């Protein structure tokens, strides 16, 4: 009974939160609702007994959304509404509905055709994190390693993109030095 109450409570909360994320024109509402929705999703993992995934969901998404806040802070005045330029709302609506239907189809199709089988059933007498580790380092070893390499590539790419002029620190420079180095921090107009 408690599982059912908790499930419906968090299901409703998650849907409401992500609806706010999509519908609002306030950047701060959108990001905050998204963070809340992501944290509410962890409740489903806890209800299913997957404590490890639940805790990881909280840790990963609080960090990820925190980075999103940093971008929101840099791009918008977050206390004001963002005025969007909508040239063709019909196409946006059609593409949005199409994408939503496709995502639902992708996840529902294997369930409907009964094609999902638990090849690695839960081990008895091991903790949650050990169970995840066993599956991750046996069946899913290759995807796991590929994801690690992909993250490494993304990290190196990020360092190279942001790394220009990293030896100079604006904090440690005098005012005159900053004003004399005119176009150092901006890419050339019309560049690549």
């Amino acid at each position: 009974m408690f599982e059912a109450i908790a499930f419906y409570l968090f299901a409703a909360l998650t849907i409401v939160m992500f609806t706010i994320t999509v519908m609002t024109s306030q950047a701060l509402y959108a990001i905050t609702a998204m963070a809340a929705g992501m944290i509410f999703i962890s409740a489903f993992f806890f209800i299913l007994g997957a404590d490890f995934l639940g805790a990881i969901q909280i840790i990963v998404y609080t960090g990820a959304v925190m980075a999103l806040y940093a971008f929101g802070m840099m791009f918008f005045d977050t206390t004001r509404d963002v005025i969007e330029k909508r040239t063709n709302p019909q196409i946006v609506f059609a593409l949005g509905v199409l994408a939503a239907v496709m995502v639902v189809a992708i996840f529902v199709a294997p369930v409907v055709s009964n094609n999902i089988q638990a090849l690695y059933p839960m081990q008895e007498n091991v903790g949650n994190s050990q169970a995840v580790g066993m599956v991750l380092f046996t069946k899913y070893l290759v995807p796991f390693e590929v994801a690690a390499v992909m993250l490494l590539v993304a990290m190196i790419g990020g360092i190279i993109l942001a790394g220009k002029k990293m030896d100079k620190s604006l904090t440690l420079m005098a005012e005159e030095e900053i004003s004399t180095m005119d176009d150092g921090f901006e890419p050339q107009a019309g560049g690549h």
Partner: protein
Amino acid sequence: MDVAFIIETIVKIVVILLIFSALAGLGTYFERKVLAFMQRRLGPMHVGPFGLLQVAADGIKLFTKEDIIPQNVVKPIFKIAPVITAATAFMASAAIPFWPQFTVMGYTVHPIVADINVGILYVLGVMAIGLYGPLLGGMASANKWSLISAARSAAIFISYEVISGLSLLAPLMMVGSLSLVDINNYQAGGIGNWIVWSQPVAFILFWIAAFAETGRTPFHLVANDHEIIDGFGTEYSGMRWGMFFIGEYANMFFISFVIAIIFLGGFGDGTIAGAFQLLLKVAFFFFFFLWTRAAWPDVRPDQLMWLCWKVLMPIAVLNIVVTGIVMMF
């Protein structure tokens, strides 16, 4: 799920809430007294014996003050931000074993609300959400100082989380469990078995990260009065402002418990003596937070990021590699 379990859990939650809200209030008194003695002052001394009732006076002031919501703020976010800080601090405490289990009139009490087997991950994850309070409060108030403070709290968050996670990895590799009860039992053999002796580097790193996590001096840059007024707290008044502080002080106590349990043996073998030793260790770590505030200046945000990413993170990674090699051979 029987009724006794539910009642027991609710009682535990209420007891933890009451004790630690009271301790958070008293924490401000301890802080003022300790800082005063270190600076050759007397601190609060007029209200009640030794100024002890100053806490009650401050509490009454905060509760009865008008709750001002300035005009240009984003109201719902502005209102909920202090609640996030205070609530997540107490939510994180759900997986902390505060005391060894004991028996009262034939009924065994486990002084932990939820003994989930990923305890330490849960505690750190939920504690980390607490930094959303300063971030949201800063971003929602239409004030430049608050916005700077919000940017700084995002920077702190991104920096320290790596350190606290990586530094904990080495001790967790040795214990082989994420549950705080298991970590405690691993060190039950006495002072020689404490993880601090085998993982001194991880201990220091995690301790430093704890300062960033609770936003205490020398990493108090989210609310440095002399640079950015009061940071995220500039626009707040009354109890909403007070809730930020309840969260901060409760977090200080909880992170002290976590450090003591992971590195310094926790409550040991579970006797009464061990339990009181745990309280002594927690008191020491809490005192150390205050001591540092009296003794050290604050660092700049870029210095904090430099320290976290270029100094502490490589040390933490090296520590993991060395631990792995030692465990393998």
